[in-house]
């Protein structure tokens, strides 16, 4: 399992990286490398050129930006998990990241890398969608912001252009009474989930005023279930009704560990599991 040959370019700054990426559509970005290198080692991916952006300074900032929490693309998962600003403003992100792989992977894997790669079983893309985050990308025509919901188009397919690189993500700060709760079902700790749910809740356990349900590992991208959320708000937890609603809203796709029918079932019970984590 030795990678095929490629040329390696350590980008000196963002413009440098953008320029090369624009010119060569077989060039790929190397940030943390935790998803790219397995693909290279297994020769699932044979790019001609790797653009290493990991040494570009200034892309790993974590700060409050207006009414948002800004996570720079090159912030590693460990950076985020150990960051006071994140702990004070969005502690759920830290709890979610505990589910991602294992410590050594988290020391290298980047926030932007996970968002840009868009693995359907990954937690961060679902969190971005659930919180209505904005994904900031930079390209030849400058910077633009793409709403998370519009960012994920299909299986490993995002709205980013060939010349663009993710530089950061802006998560709206949680309002008073707003909570993010989540859970996932996986075979082994750190594995990709068989099904996962991130719920954006306004209200408390017995008095939910607004609810957004975003499932992951259920299809080819984060799956938003607005109809089912409204059904829950109207009727509370009714397994059969919610299951029916989910099956009409989400195109469940089975994988090695769970069939589409099992994912539908897990998604339904996840609503109960996740919302029971709310406090009164």
């Amino acid at each position, binding site marked *: *399992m030795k990678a*095929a040959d490629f040329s390696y370019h350590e980008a000196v700054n963002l413009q440098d990286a953008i320029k090369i990426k624009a010119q060569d559509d077989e060039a790929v970005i190397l940030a943390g490398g935790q998803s790219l290198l397995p693909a290279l080692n297994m020769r699932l991916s044979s790019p001609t050129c790797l653009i290493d952006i990991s040494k570009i300074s200034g892309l790993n900032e974590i700060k409050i930006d207006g009414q948002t929490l800004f996570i720079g693309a090159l912030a590693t998962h460990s950076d985020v998990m150990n960051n006071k600003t994140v702990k004070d403003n969005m502690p759920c992100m830290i709890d979610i990241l505990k589910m991602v792989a294992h410590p050594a992977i988290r020391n290298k894997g980047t926030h932007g890398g996970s968002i840009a790669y868009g693995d359907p079983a990954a937690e961060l893309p679902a969190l971005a969608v659930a919180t209505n985050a904005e994904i900031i990308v930079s390209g030849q025509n400058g910077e633009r912001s793409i709403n998370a919901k519009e960012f994920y188009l299909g299986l490993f397919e995002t709205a980013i252009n060939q010349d663009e690189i993710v530089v950061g993500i802006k998560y709206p700060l949680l309002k008073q009474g707003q909570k993010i709760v989540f859970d996932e079902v996986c075979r*082994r700790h750190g*594995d990709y989930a068989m099904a996962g749910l991130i719920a954006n809740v306004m209200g408390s356990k017995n008095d939910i005023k607004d609810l957004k349900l975003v499932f992951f590992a259920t299809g080819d991208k984060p799956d938003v279930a607005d109809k089912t959320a409204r059904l829950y708000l109207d009727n509370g937890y009714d397994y059969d009704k919610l299951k029916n609603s989910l099956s009409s809203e989400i195109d469940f796709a089975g994988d*090695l560990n769970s069939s589409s029918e*099992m994912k539908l*079932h897990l998604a339904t019970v996840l609503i109960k599991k996740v919302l029971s984590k709310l406090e009164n």
Partner: protein
Amino acid sequence: MDDIKVNQNPKLGSLDRPNSYIGRSLPRENAKKHLDGGGQFVDDLTLPRMVHVAFLRSPFAHAEIKSINTNDAKKSDGVVDVFTAKEIDEVCKPWIGTLGHLGEMRSPEQTPLAKKIARWQGEPVAVVIADSRAQAEDALELIEVDWAEKEAQVDMETALDSNAVVIHPELGNNLFWTRTVNQGDVEKAFKEADAVVEATLDFARHTGVTLESRGIVADWNKAENKMTIYHNGQAPHMMQHIIAKHLDLNEGLVRIVSRDVGGSFGIKVHVYPDEMAVTAISKKIGRPVKFIADRLESFTTDIHARCHKISGKLGVDKNGKILAMEIDDLSGIGPFSMYPRTSAIETNQVLNLSGAPYVIPNYKAVGTVVFQNKTPMCQYRAVGHPIAVAITEALIDKAAYKIDMDIDKIRKINFIPDNAYPNKCPSGVPLEDLSHEASMDKLLEIMDIKEIEVQKEEDLKKGVLTGHGVISMCEVTNPSPLFYGVGGAHISSQDGASIRLEGSGAIHLSSSITEQGQGTEAIMKQIAADQLGVKMESVRVTLGDTDATPYGGGTWASRGAGIGGEAVLKAARKLKDNILNIAAAIMQTDKDTLDIEDNNVIRKNGGEGISLQKLAETVYYRGHELPKGTNAELLATASFLIEGIPFVFTNSAMGCQVSIDQDTGIIKINKFWAVEDCGTQINPKLVEEQIRGGVIQGIGGALFEECVYDDQGNMQNATMADYLVPMAYEMPDIIVDHVTTNSGRSIIGAKGAGEAGTGGAPAVIMNAVNNALKQVNAEVVSQPITPEKILKALGKIQ
């Protein structure tokens, strides 16, 4: 940790003398190098002019190879050459994986590289030899193969149907081997039974996933006509014979060196076509050749194991006494039987060992083994035991439930009593020195079943399903020649030890047993130092080198302590006797008044002795000082062999408690207990760790591991992310306890302990899961017991 077992074995001498090491949980000082990065694994070796290989492997389960064009590949950067079967066959003769002692066995000739037809996904078809593995892989992409895909036989249940794809037309059908065991009259007994229960269980194919993959460096030295092989295998002398035979070399000039091995569990005891190709390449090009299987090719080329569908029937009287047991087992192997141990052994053990702890006067067992176009299959830790124990113990639980008897009580009344040995198991295989009653009693004592049953009722009220199970089993260890040698295999059942006192006073020991991390070196040291009367640190050990060790069988079937250890014991005693003879001559006294303690010959009644160093100096440097005719011999060798019975069995009792999440189907193992009787324990800590490691491996097969195939015979989950091995978070702590019944077959009395954990865990887990599911009228019959299967059993999904 410093744990002296007082009731171990009086034949070994008093436990309170200095140098009493047998029975103590001493740390493995010799293994500390692994913590310093000092291991010497095959991939760590570099030799001058060494080249690397990568194999082109069939992407199809079954395909004709119409042509192979290697021209472009040969021109690729760093490539030395590219071979197909044509070049390899010039140097290496084919083999057949059959033996003569198990009835008719049919398997065709197999060559290192496929010739005209590839018969399993992963079968090597061509090989690139290059300066680096990366460059070899580059060249693989340039090899053009004209494939004609054929229909594949990938379902063992249809392999004998009239419209099956017959993999070897010359054999007529896909039957590799079949055997029937028939004791008594099961039909009559079932008619007389008050209750009859049945079960059909299936077990998924899975594999060993040794962390260090298979590897070999073959070094043909033309000048010396000598082949040196660095190999992470378990049985160096067996490989020595086979490589010499198939490469037409002088066996005495083939040297196999096995240094550190990163786990084996039986995976590395077989003969692999790609490894044989490597030896042939070295012979052909006259350079050292290295092959390390990467993880992807390990999944599709390491032997697989344990694919069985077994139906069983048990008849009991109204008191729970077993009258009859019948099993019918189907297993699917690869397109060839593995060489040289054959792919029949796993099924043979299922037939031999089902029902083994119990008195079952009427027993019938039919085993059928069929070819498939899948990865070849062969022995993997606890060969056959997981299936034999699972079907037996599942049937016994079912009988207990049917007649409303406690699961422990029904077992106890059916055990072969502890005082009734020698005896035979239901299939007729001889048994001796076992303790099922005492072991089960011990298990129940440490499990506190009453407490568990109370907890279970409380849990059910809260909607939580918990369950528990207890099982008993026998483990095959310390095999005699009746296992392989009798059938024509050049696999030694006799092992040897050689021990010497050197001029410096140091002790050197060599043994034909090998080390893969279980602690072979440590226990050999403990035995030698204990029996000789020297400090542990004065003994150094050589293992794993056919040039430098006695001839023997290596490590497999849990034979190291019992067979190799006995040879060490005998050799150490011989050397001690020799030393005392010399000392008596030097000290002008009777041998019986002397002993050896802490590296000194001492007078039992006090007075001046002589250090081993001074004695050795006299012998080697100043032999003229010894009385004429002393015949000073400071080197002793001894061997040991099991005679008169096919195996030395051990027994275990295991228990576990599980809970099942009814929403997600996830099973949690809350508690696990194992009581092991392996006779004398040389190092109790190492025995415990074998049990623990074995149990976890069994849990893998019970809950997580399976090789998933599509209907074209392609393995779907052949990566480390997709094939689920047990990782730390999901695994329980395991409480281990012991009963000790020494083997009467040796002085040391040690039996094997390496495989019981893996043999028993799948059975007890399945029983505990079904004990939990019974509360909601559900059951599972298939391993691995995945969340999906639980949800289906609970009716949550279809």
